[in-house]
Every structure is written in C-alpha cells, then in structure tokens.
C-alpha cells in the first residue's frame, strides 16, 4: 500500500486508499508504446471481484495492449498491474488468459485435449504426469464449452467458433479466479457466442471475475455489468448504466460512430 501511495504521489495522482488492495484486478498508470506514439497512456482501471467487465474502444485504442502489458507479455513504459492486491506475476496461478484466436497457427500438430492440457502446465510442471485427475479436469473443461465430441480432433479441423471454445476450455481447465479474455466473441458463430457467454455468466455466478476485450457495442448491456471505455487514454469506467452512455461513447469513438451503432446506450440514458 505504501508503494501504491508513493507511486501515486510521484505521478501527482489521487488514489482512493485500499483501492487496488481489494480489487480482483487493478491497473495503475499504465503506459505502453510500440514506437514514438503511446498505444496506451496512463490508464488506471479497477475491477471488483465477482464482476464482468467489458473493455471497449475503437480499433487501435490499445485494448489488447492494455491486457498484454498488465500480464507482462508486453513491457510497459510505466505502470503496473495487480491482481487480488499482489503483483500479477506473483499470482499467475489465479489468472487465466485467453489470447486472440488469430494469434496462433491452427495447423499446429495438436489435438483439442492437448491444447486444453496446456492450461494445466502449472500443475504438471516439467516432468509431472498428465494423470487421471488432470485428464478428468481437462475433459470437464472441454465438456463445459460443448466440445466433448471433439476432444481428439486435430485443432485445424475445427471451425473458428469451435477454436475459440477450445481456447476458453484451456482457461477453464486452469480453474483460475480471474479470467482475462481478448476478443472472445470476434468472428464466432451465434451458437458459439451463446455457449461462451453462458460459461462466462456461470463463472461470475461462482464469484469469479471476468474481464473481456469486446467490440460489439450492441451486446455490452446484455453481457456485462461493468465497462471500461478506452481510446489510448481511459475515457470512462464504471457500471454499464453509468459509464456506457452516448456521451462517453462519442468521446471514445469520436466521429467513427453512427448514432445507429449505439442502440443499447441510447436507450440506457
């Protein structure tokens, strides 16, 4: 906590005491840059335990970058991220990350069950066996996303939506407390979208915390209870009813958003 206040003081910001200590996931002063221009600039965000948060914003707003930097996959220029009050790197066991589906080669020689087993790496270690107990956990995760029949399939034979469900199953196998998902609904069929949101809501019902980078404004109100609007800087954050309004959307998207694109928001205000 002392370090937190120190950092805030150094940056001339005011921080509500205890804020990041109790949050399931918190980002403070995060700035990431790929070149001379920051992709994410001084972003703070706080995710309470047991909530479902959508990170939204236009293309190139730094949504994925923010998640990656928080997880240490991208070295930030400044800032830090905590989960359950501890540095993210110290609580990896409690965090499951679902990268964008397009980020891997689906022609890789591996089956659905093998991919999901990768979510159990921390339990297996270098030489531990993928024994009956862990196999059952992997099979259960695959069944929860409705892919039981496909466990032995080579991943390249799956449709895009099925591949996304495999990625989700790999995260479920980890049995984490915090789930960070990068565009889990991008380019999936309607049945997959339904299956994924059902799983996420079930996680929330069990007290888990879900944060998802999301691009479909029309489903934000239906799927999520909190929202973070991002466009390099943070535009708004809070409960969907308060932070997801026509004003904040206009501020985040600028002229790129037609009034017709925000039905949920317009009705909400």
């Amino acid at each position, binding site marked *: 906590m002392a370090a937190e206040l120190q950092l805030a003081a150094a940056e001339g910001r005011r921080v509500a005491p205890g804020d990041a200590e109790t949050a399931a996931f918190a980002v403070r002063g995060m700035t990431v840059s790929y070149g001379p221009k920051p992709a994410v600039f001084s972003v703070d965000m706080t995710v309470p335990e047991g909530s479902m948060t959508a990170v939204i914003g236009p293309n190139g707003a730094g949504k994925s970058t923010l998640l990656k930097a928080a997880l240490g996959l991208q070295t930030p220029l400044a800032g830090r991220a905590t989960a359950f009050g501890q540095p993210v790197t110290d609580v990896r066991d409690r965090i499951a*990350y679902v990268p964008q589906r397009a980020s891997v080669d689906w022609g890789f020689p591996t*089956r659905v069950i093998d991919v999901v087993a*990768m979510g159990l790496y921390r339990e297996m270690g*270098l030489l531990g066996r993928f024994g009956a107990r862990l196999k059952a956990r992997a099979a259960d995760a695959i069944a929860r996303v409705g892919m039981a029949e496909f466990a032995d399939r080579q991943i390249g034979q799956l449709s895009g939506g099925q591949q996304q469900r495999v990625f989700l199953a790999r995260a479920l196998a980890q049995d984490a407390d915090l789930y960070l998902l990068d565009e889990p609904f991008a380019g999936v069929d309607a049945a997959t979208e339904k299956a994924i949101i059902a799983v996420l809501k079930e996680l929330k019902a069990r007290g888990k915390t879900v944060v998802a980078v999301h691009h479909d404004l029309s489903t934000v109100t239906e799927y999520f209870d909190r929202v973070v609007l991002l466009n390099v800087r943070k535009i708004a954050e809070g409960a969907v009813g308060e932070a997801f309004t026509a004003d904040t959307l206009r501020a985040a998207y600028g002229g790129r958003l037609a009034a017709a694109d925000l039905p949920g928001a317009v009705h909400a205000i």
Partner: protein
Amino acid sequence: MLFEALTLGLGYNASLVTLGAAALGMAAGVTGTFLYLRKRALVSDAISHATLPGIAAAFMLAVALGGDGRGLPVLLLGSAVSAALGLLAVQWLASRTRLTEDAAIGAVLSVFFGFGVVLLTVIQTLSTGRQAGLEDFLLGATAGMLRSEALLIAVGGLVTLAIVVVLRRPMLMTAFDPSHASAMGVNLTRTDIAMMGLVMAVTVVGLKIVGLILIVALLIIPPVAARFWSDRADRVVLLAGVVGGVAGWVGAAFSATAADLPTGPMIVLAAFALFCLSFLLAPGRGLMAAALRAASFRTRVHLRQGLLAIANDQPIYETLTLRLLARRGLALPDGVPTEAGRAAAARARLDEERWAIVRADPSLELAAARYDGLTPLEDVLTVDQISEIDARRPAPEALA
C-alpha cells in the same frame, strides 16, 4: 559388407561410430522438431555455418600455444563459441535493426562462413601439413575417427536428448502460443535460448560426423518427414527421433563400406529417403492417400449429383456422372435410370429433405456442422432422431 556394417559387424570402432551417428541423429531429429514447430528452422543454418571460424581459430590458437591443434574437444569448444556469436548476431540484427530474421540469417551465415574459409586457407599456407583433416568438418568423415571421439559424440547426443525431455512442455507451449505460455509463467526468452542452445549442441556434436554444411538437413528433414504421419506434437517428436536415428545408423554404415564416402551426405541421403517414403505413403497426409481421397470424393459428388438429377427428372450431361451411374447399374449408358437408380434417387432426395430440417434447427447445430451434401444423415443421427425429424417433414399430400 553393407550387411556387416548395418549389423555392427565391422569391428568395435566402426560399431561405435555407427552408434554415435544414430544417437546424434535421434538428438538432431528430436531437437529439430521444436525448432521446426517454432518456425525458426533456418536459424540452425546460420548457427552451423558460424562454427567454421571457431574451428579454424581454435586450431590456430592451439598450435600457437604449442599443442597439436587437432584435439576434438578443443575444436568443438571453438566452434561452440563462434556459433554462439553467430546466433547472437542474428538475434541482435533481427530485434534491433530493420532487418527481418531471414535477411539477418543470410548475412550472418555468409559472413561467418566466408571468414572461416579465409582462416582455413591461411592455415593451409602457414603450417606444415598438420592441419590435414580440418576440411572434414565441412562434410563429415568418420574414417580414422578415434574411439574417444565417437564416445564423445554418442554421449553428447544422449545428454542433449535428456535435456529435451525435461524442457519439452515449455518448448511446445512457446511454439504453439507464446502469449499464453508467457501468461502461464513460462519464460519465453529463456526457453528460446535453451532451444537454440540445444540446436547448437547438436550442431557442434555433429560436426565431425555430418559436417557443418549438412547438419541443418539432419535437424529439419526428420521432423518434416514425421509430420506426415501424425497430427500430435508428442508423436511427431518421437517419430522424428526415430527417423533421425535410423538415418544416422544407415548413413554411417553405408559410408563405412567404401573408403572415401563422406558420412554427412550419406546420412542426409538416408534421411531424405525416409522423407520420400513418408511423403508418398503416409496415410492421411501422404501424396497417395490424398490422391485416393480426392478420387473417391469426386466419385461421391458425381453420384450424388446424378441421383438428385434423376429424382428431379433433370437430364444428366456430365459424361463422368453417366459412366459412374452406369457402372453401378443405376442408369443405362444413355442416362435413363434403372429401377435401382430410381430407388437410390428417391433415397437421396429424402436424405436432402431431412438434412434441410436438421440445418434449420439450431438445437442440432453439431449435427448440422457435418453437412457436406454427401454424408447420409443415417451416419450422423440415430434412428430415433431421424424418425423424429421425419415427423416434422411436411406430408406429401400437403404439398400437392
């Protein structure tokens, strides 16, 4: 002679060389698989070519210090140092400059190799014949290999193999999905360095037998051949080890049967033969299996089209369709359907109607995903499910 060589009948030393080559081949195949899956196969070419200046420099240094200069451990140590420098140069160029990795590999490979050749020439003009044999590191030679050298190679290969077994999980996770691996706490930099270190170890250990020009083939051909046989990474790794091991064994035995046969090319040719077998014969991904599959698919498409045309009283123009129908007794050569043809056509139409219902029902999504216009619904759903679907079909009189 060849039989004796293959069955280790040419004496203790020759047998040791053959076993050493097999161990090296296994290590190269297994290590190479991770390199191939990480899509960095060509880096090994830069590493291997970068060993040459190290070999030459180690020789010169040893001679200058009054030694013999030909001791294998000293030369391998020198080669390892310059290979590491070459690898660092590639990494640095690719990450810190605008050069892409392939360009960096090309630059490093040619500069290091060129420098090595110059050093070799210098050695040739300077000293008095003691250097004889340094060129053997280019293509590999086992004739006159010392017992201790063969042992060093075999042990080096086996140690490399053991390290791969320990690091297989982080290396596979890094190769498949680096972001996820990193989020799981796998240190990507260290894993990649370990993988490159293993490749370097295989290269250095293999210098004497395979030679630096061809070692890349022993790293890459086994995994590519193994990939034809399996869609599972663990099996590809094992099979690549087998392919590499057999290639090393057979190649070394072949080269032992004639005095001047270089070992490296023989081993690589043996590996290539195994690749060709895999490429042609592997079930599933092999060339022949693919051709058979394509032919059978075409037949099924034509038959189905023909039957649906009969069911709808449409004429059939495709000669292949006509021939296939006629050969099965479903139609006469001029396209007029037989009794059996009409029955089959009715079944095909019924199947299409059932499929249309399945595909319109979101609760049958998994079954609908298997629709390809060819698979009968009986192969996908149970009899009970189908009769339930038939109940939903509009009755014929309702249509009329």
